[in-house]
């Protein structure tokens, strides 16, 4: 079987899963869970195989499939892996089986529909990442709303309807403007070059006028910024996270938010480089505000889920900084930060779900001394907390450190050229690291240590083998990225260089040797 075919199988396997759940028997939920888990595992195995086969030295699209789909408009079914998406696809496929395993006991209502929705989300997320055609990308991007809407709305908490409608209305507003921008973009490509195409590779060369670029960039950026989310467009996130079931939170934090940063990296910045360069300082400023503001909000929350929700906003601010820096190290750091946050936030949401299943409370004040009550749980919790803070040897360190380093390199250059704004911003961003350590450690201290108390403490048991398995897999991945970041980063390096070239243009390429010389 050729590798391109395997990528198609990976993408379409969830659809097979949906068909399976439609035909399955609602009275035997364990069979549904088991088969769904098996399918997800197969999907992950195939993705891992593709990841191993991925050639880091090839800058082009790998395992590509190109079929004409709507020839009149130049729309093609064009999918493939490249340095931008390879790690994110791996992350998505990795979280798939964990999500199914993690909902084993938590979801007892409409089990078939739940798994169908998990599959649909998986399909949409993978599709968004592997699509190399703007039309296809948009298709998957919007499709993602539907299963998430149902997942939060059906299996969510008390205010689930409010949260899910808010989530959909926020994200859909961004996408409708993106749709308008997309139509305009493709149309101008056709009028300037005569090529009717939605392929990213063609659109990069659209050569738009700066005035048009600013509008289009604004539309795309709005859509992606809502998804990331960047302050002040973040207000849907805490609600969605708090009300979503564990699986929903894990998917949201693990992969969905990365769609925003991925969108910036793959489309927002490179499609409209002139506008993006103009907006660099604004994007950095918003990134820094997200980092600091998110951290401050996380500090004062009393709801465990909200702490992690706000920490997501803070952590993805680093990814935005790294991308806006247009520095090779910064970009690489941004990608690592996305993946790392996907792992740690997913892990922490799993852990919140596990304690909620036992004690039925998310109120931090109800807890204390969990370390004595649930020792195994606490060890995992501490490891994931430290990874989220960015302790060296964990993935969080790789991401945060590189993103900040890249930002400083760009900021220093700008400073040398007489503009210190970026340097100030980068300086403020560093305080986010301290704040991050503060809120996470304070949270862990109140949660794990002190006098032992928890609702229903007398019935509480430590982690089951299934739960240990989920967390062990996540922790292993966290250490893999922390200890051996070299291997995955080689696979993303060429894409980072391409991004640098597309966004930075002549400036970045000329500036690079100068930096090397200064060191």
């Amino acid at each position, binding site marked *: 079987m050729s590798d391109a075919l395997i990528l198609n199988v990976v993408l379409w396997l969830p659809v097979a899963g949906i068909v399976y759940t439609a035909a399955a028997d609602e009275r035997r939920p364990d069979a549904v869970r088991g088969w769904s888990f098996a399918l997800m595992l197969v999907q992950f195995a195939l993705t891992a195989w593709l990841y191993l086969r991925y050639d880091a030295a090839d800058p082009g699209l790998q395992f590509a499939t190109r079929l004409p789909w709507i020839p009149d408009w130049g729309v093609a079914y064009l999918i493939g892996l490249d340095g931008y998406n390879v790690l994110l696809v791996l992350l998505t496929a990795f979280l798939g089986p964990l999500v199914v395993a993690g909902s084993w006991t938590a979801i007892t209502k409409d089990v078939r529909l739940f798994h169908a929705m998990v599959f649909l989300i998986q399909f949409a997320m993978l599709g968004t990442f592997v699509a190399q055609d703007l039309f296809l990308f948009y298709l998957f991007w919007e499709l993602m709303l539907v299963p998430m809407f149902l997942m939060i709305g059906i299996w969510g908490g008390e205010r689930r309807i409010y949260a899910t409608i808010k989530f959909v209305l926020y994200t*859909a507003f961004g996408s409708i403007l993106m749709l308008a921008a997309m139509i305009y973009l493709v149309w101008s490509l056709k009028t300037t070059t005569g090529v009717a195409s939605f392929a990213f590779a063609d659109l990069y060369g659209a050569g738009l006028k700066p005035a048009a670029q600013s509008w289009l960039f604004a539309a795309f950026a709005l859509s992606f910024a809502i998804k990331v989310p960047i302050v002040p467009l973040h207000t849907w996130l805490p609600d969605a996270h708090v009300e979503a079931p564990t699986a929903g939170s894990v998917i949201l934090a693990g992969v969905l938010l990365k769609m925003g940063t991925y969108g910036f990296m793959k489309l927002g910045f490179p499609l409209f480089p002139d506008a993006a360069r103009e907006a660099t300082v604004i994007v950095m400023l918003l990134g820094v505000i997200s980092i600091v503001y998110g951290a401050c909000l996380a500090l004062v929350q009393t709801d465990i889920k909200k702490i992690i929700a706000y920490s997501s906003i803070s952590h993805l601010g680093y990814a935005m900084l790294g991308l806006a820096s247009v520095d090779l190290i910064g970009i690489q750091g941004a990608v690592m930060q996305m993946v790392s946050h996907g792992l740690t936030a997913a892990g922490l949401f799993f852990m919140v779900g596990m304690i909620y299943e036992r004690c039925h409370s998310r109120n931090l004040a109800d807890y204390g001394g969990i370390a004595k009550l649930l020792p195994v749980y606490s060890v995992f919790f501490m490891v994931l907390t430290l990874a989220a803070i960015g302790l060296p040897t964990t993935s969080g360190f790789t991401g945060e450190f590189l993103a900040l380093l890249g930002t400083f390199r760009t900021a220093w250059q700008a400073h040398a050229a007489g503009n210190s704004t970026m340097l100030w911003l980068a300086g403020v961003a560093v305080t986010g690291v301290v704040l991050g350590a503060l809120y996470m450690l304070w949270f862990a201290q109140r949660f794990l240590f002190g006098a032992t108390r928890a609702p229903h403490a007398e019935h509480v048991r430590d982690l089951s083998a299934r739960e240990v398995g989920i967390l062990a897999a996540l922790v292993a991945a966290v250490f893999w990225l922390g200890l051996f970041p070299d291997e995955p980063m080689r696979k993303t390096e060429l894409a980072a260089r391409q991004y640098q070239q597309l966004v930075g243009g002549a400036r970045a390429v000329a500036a690079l040797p100068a930096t090397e010389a200064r060191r």
Partner: protein
Amino acid sequence: MNVQTVLVSMLPEHLLLAGLCLVLVLDILGRAPRTSFALALGTVVAAAAAAAVLSAGGYAAATFVGQLSVSPATSAGKAIVLVLAVPVLMLSRDEFRDAQFPMLALASLYGACLMISADSFLTLLLGLETLSLPVYALVLLAMQRKDCAEAALKYLVLGGTATGMLLMGASLLFGWSGTLAIDAFARALDAPSALARAGAALVLCAFFLKAAIFPFHAWAPDAYQGGSVPATAYMATIVKAAVLLAVVRLFGAAELSPAMIALVAVPPLVSIVWGNITAMRQPSFRRMIAYSSIAHAGFLFFALLGAVEGRFQAIAFYLAAYGLMSLVAFTALPHDGDDAVDDRIDSLKGLFHRRPYAAVTLAIAMLSLAGIPPLPGFVAKFLVFRNVMAAGHTELAVLGLVGSYLGLYFYLRVIQYMFMAAHPYGATQAALRRHAFAASLVCLVPVALLTVFPGWALGLLRG
């Protein structure tokens, strides 16, 4: 005029007429309504197939010079209308046991076909009346309902107004150009004469009224709510499709002058916004669909802003996607007995647990109407706005898209009720309605085709 041309080019119409006569005779002979129903269904399928074959074969002929001509595009339009009629007829079978519904529907479909291929205002008017008059009776068929007479009367009176406006407009155009050919309308659009412009505006307003465009929309919610489900389905899909296809033909190859752009863009834009906002507050499902159809009529008229060569394709694709998806929604509605209760959106609560198939198909229909990809509703909307933007009306396209965003909420509310709420009147396990189920399958096959192969469908409708 030669006999062969008349026979071949109007084959769909002839089949409908023959079927209608047979059904009438069978009814007089007192045969079982079941036979009439099967015959009517067969007739419509055959007519649809004939239209499709004519269109695919590229058949074009001037059947009656100056009055009626056939082109691949008109045949494709007829095929769409007739295909939409198949599920409507099937849907009617669950509610109306006797042969009246199929009879009236066949007569009305004949008018639709006539209207789509009209070359002169005379034929157009003939088609429009033949299309509309049976529909008044269709609405009245559900006489046991409370609001039924009111609905039919409103539809009748306002339909009469539309006819009046059309006649007035046509006579003004006749006075200006000395001809009843519908090209006069297109030429009048950018003519310097006040007479011509007034005529064109009146004709356009008549069609606005028929398609329920703001500010001529107020009849639609009452008519939709008062009629039965199949009658509403007929009005929302087939009447709308026939009217819009006639409009495309009317506009022909006319480029819009700036003054006309305002006339063609503003009422539809307001329709989109007003329809979508008002739909949010409706307690009745059919009323909500009426407002949704007002918004969709806005999108359809928007397509006229695009370049000439893309108009037919955009409108025909939109009609097919919109019609099929609305019909899927109608086939999925609960039918537990009391129509007034069934029609409340509240009664959709918990539908997923009572009838999962209906809930899932209704959800798909709502998502498609909301324009969520990859469903055909999205491709249709994309096509319209792509054409509008390509014609240089960027601001209008953005406004229209933002207007379509407003509709998202009420479509989602239906899904929310079905999946996220418990049934308010206690769970009743409604029996599966055989014909509605079959009708939904009939709709879902072309829906799947349009979803998976939109490129192929667009190629067929290139016009």
